[in-house]
């Protein structure tokens, strides 16, 4: 089997979703959640988590009629080539955009912490080389690496939770409903943006060895991802008072700096950064793989490997755009937030519902198989 057509096992698919969530945790997403709802973050996370779970159960139901299909196939079924083209372009743009803000943010953080003197382009080039090599070797290599990295990264996030054990106090999470009910439940609904992993569910089915496991994979990966997000939010809420006027560039990094094992082992953040760096490598490789895959589907290319050069170049070019704190903040806290909500809970969901309705009302249909 060619490496690019590799089909994932259950465990591998769950790890792939987890690496996407981990990449969001490493960046400042948990802090933005806390910033918007204050101490109501715990209730808000449960609330958002339940909404996400219901959404995923509905999504599983909607995908039942389209086994072995992803959102591109479904949109082709619904609206022909026109809709397929539109949806494909949107997804290519979104995958590249999210990869861009992830890479820009992480590379800037690395530069601040370790490579103060080196030009940003050097840091970026190392990422580019990694993404390029992994995608040229193939999807199988990316997935296997992810399976290896994910457990360690999860352990690092759990260790960060233990680091704040001494400071842990229920008073830090009170009042439980945050600023007020409106911010926690109405404005707080926007925190569904943290469930970016759902975007990947729309593409997961054809990548699975056995698509019948789709439901189990989505539910399990969602549950683990939510627990990780929840624990990270708790950890950050424990050490950063909500009235604090300062906003860290990366709250999880500051959290990791607190970790000490006795008097002898201090500043473990260096190990954490290494793990997170590999995680970001994996995530970016997956993103570029997705971009290639969608583009190949759009243009009916049989092999998407060689597209890696162009997609990586585009990502590199985007990252070379002038980046400043204000722009980064707007992109992460505003553009990213609304874009993900519109895409995951808006456009895609509507396409899935309409495709199901079309399937239902169009006579003589049997299950649609693509892939």
């Amino acid at each position, binding site marked *: 089997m060619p490496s690019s057509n590799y089909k994932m096992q259950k465990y591998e698919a769950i790890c792939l979703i987890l690496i996407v969530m981990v990449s969001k945790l490493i960046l400042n997403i948990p802090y933005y959640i806390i910033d918007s709802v204050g101490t109501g973050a715990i209730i808000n996370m449960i609330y958002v988590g339940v909404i996400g779970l219901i959404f995923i159960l509905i999504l599983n139901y909607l995908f039942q009629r389209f086994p072995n299909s992803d959102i591109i196939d479904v949109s082709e079924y619904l609206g022909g080539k026109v809709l397929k083209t539109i949806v494909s372009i949107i997804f290519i743009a979104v995958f590249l955009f999210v990869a861009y803000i992830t890479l820009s943010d992480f590379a800037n953080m690395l530069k601040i912490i370790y490579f103060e003197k080196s030009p940003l382009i050097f840091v970026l080039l190392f990422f580019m080389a990694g993404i390029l090599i992994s995608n040229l070797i193939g999807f199988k290599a990316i997935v296997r690496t992810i399976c290896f990295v994910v457990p360690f990264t999860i352990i690092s996030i759990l260790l960060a939770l233990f680091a704040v054990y001494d*400071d842990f106090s229920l*008073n830090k999470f009170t009042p439980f409903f*945050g600023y007020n009910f409106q911010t926690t439940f109405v404005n707080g609904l926007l925190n569904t943006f943290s469930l970016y992993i759902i975007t990947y569910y729309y593409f997961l089915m054809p990548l699975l060895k056995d698509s019948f496991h789709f439901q189990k994979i989505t539910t399990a990966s969602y549950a683990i991802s939510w627990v990780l997000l929840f624990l990270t939010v708790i950890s950050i809420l424990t*050490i950063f008072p909500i009235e604090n006027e300062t906003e860290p560039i990366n709250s999880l990094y500051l959290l990791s700096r607190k970790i000490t094992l006795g008097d002898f082992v201090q*500043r473990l953040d260096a190990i954490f950064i290494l793990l997170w760096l590999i995680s970001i490598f994996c995530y970016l490789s997956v993103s570029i793989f997705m971009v290639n895959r969608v583009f190949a589907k759009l243009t009916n290319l049989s092999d998407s490997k060689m597209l890696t050069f162009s997609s990586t170049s585009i990502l590199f070019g985007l990252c070379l755009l002038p980046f400043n704190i204000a722009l980064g903040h707007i992109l992460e806290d505003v553009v990213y937030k609304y874009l993900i909500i519109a895409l995951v809970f808006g456009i895609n969901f509507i396409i899935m519902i309409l495709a199901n309705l079309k399937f239902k009302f169009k006579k003589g249909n049997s299950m649609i198989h693509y892939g």
Partner: protein
Amino acid sequence: MVKKYIAFLLILTLLLFMLTGCYDSTGIENFYYIVALGIDKSEKDDNLITLHVQNAKPSSSSESSSAQSNESKIYSVDCRTIESGINILNNYLNKKINLSHCSAIIFSEEIAKEGIKNFINTLGNDTEVRSTCNVMISSKSSYDLLDNVTNSSDSFSSRLYDYILNSVDYTGYTIDSTFNNFSSRLNNEQTQATAIYALVNEDTVQNFGAAVFKEDSMVGTICALETIAHLMVTNHLEGCMIPITNPFDENHVIDVNLRKVKKPDIDVRLENNAPFIKIDLSLQGSINSSGEEFDYTNPDNIKKVEDTCNEYIQELIRTYLGKITKEYRSDIAGFGGMLSSKYLTIDDFNKIHWNEIFENSNYEVHVHTQITSSQLLNKE
């Protein structure tokens, strides 16, 4: 195929070494590692600060261990900001000052009373500063403290400040004020910040209680015994020794070693728009010395000692609470946070204006001490 991979890995390994350029390489010889940083108000100009850096000079003697040194050096400079001061010193020393081994950041009381949030935020923005670095307030200038530590008879090392500050674990006379906790509490409205207060005498330095902050300015101090009360209330007491009056002979004292049995039970509520704080403490103690003839095996004797101990600690905690509520109006124990758990939203809690009503607090303190041991003697 396998050969290809091996060749690829070999190339990668070679590249690893070839790409490690040396044009911007830095080694430890390029850095000037400091063990303490002091910040004072400048004597020359009110708008300036004086920055002191102290380093441990490696001992030339081959007999001494590498981590120890008998010498240290202090450099001072007048500057507008910490960063500009460090830059001037970098230029003077021809080495880059590195804060990654800095174990104490010392502010003079004078500058702490004017507010130190800007300094803390500047240092918090520096990746080199450890979260475990201690924040101290010096009763005199920070230079005096650094100088006295340098001249102390103990061998000087980068760990010296750690050893000095570790006394919190067994004396309870001071607090643990790491940089991370201090900076996070400096901006926290529900719990105010505290830092180690060092009393600088002519040629000695003594950790003497804690400096109390309100918002970002120091408003006063609590003494060593009040610090024990603070540690008890905030559940941070590791162990302490208190001398109580001998219930059988007022001219003698009994030394009691105390430890916490469980987390203090604290209830904060509003009564007539004034906070009411109810504290229940459970402690376990052992009598170290009675100072005279004493029969520890008699239950009545033990009961009397326990009662005396309870009264003593209750009074101590009342004095502490009186000081932080009425005198300093600074909620360093985090009672506001405890009360906030009774409100559903932050907006509701803000309506009571905690910082304004805190000074009107009333309190009720109950202490239950259980004497469980008399160390090695049953009778004295």
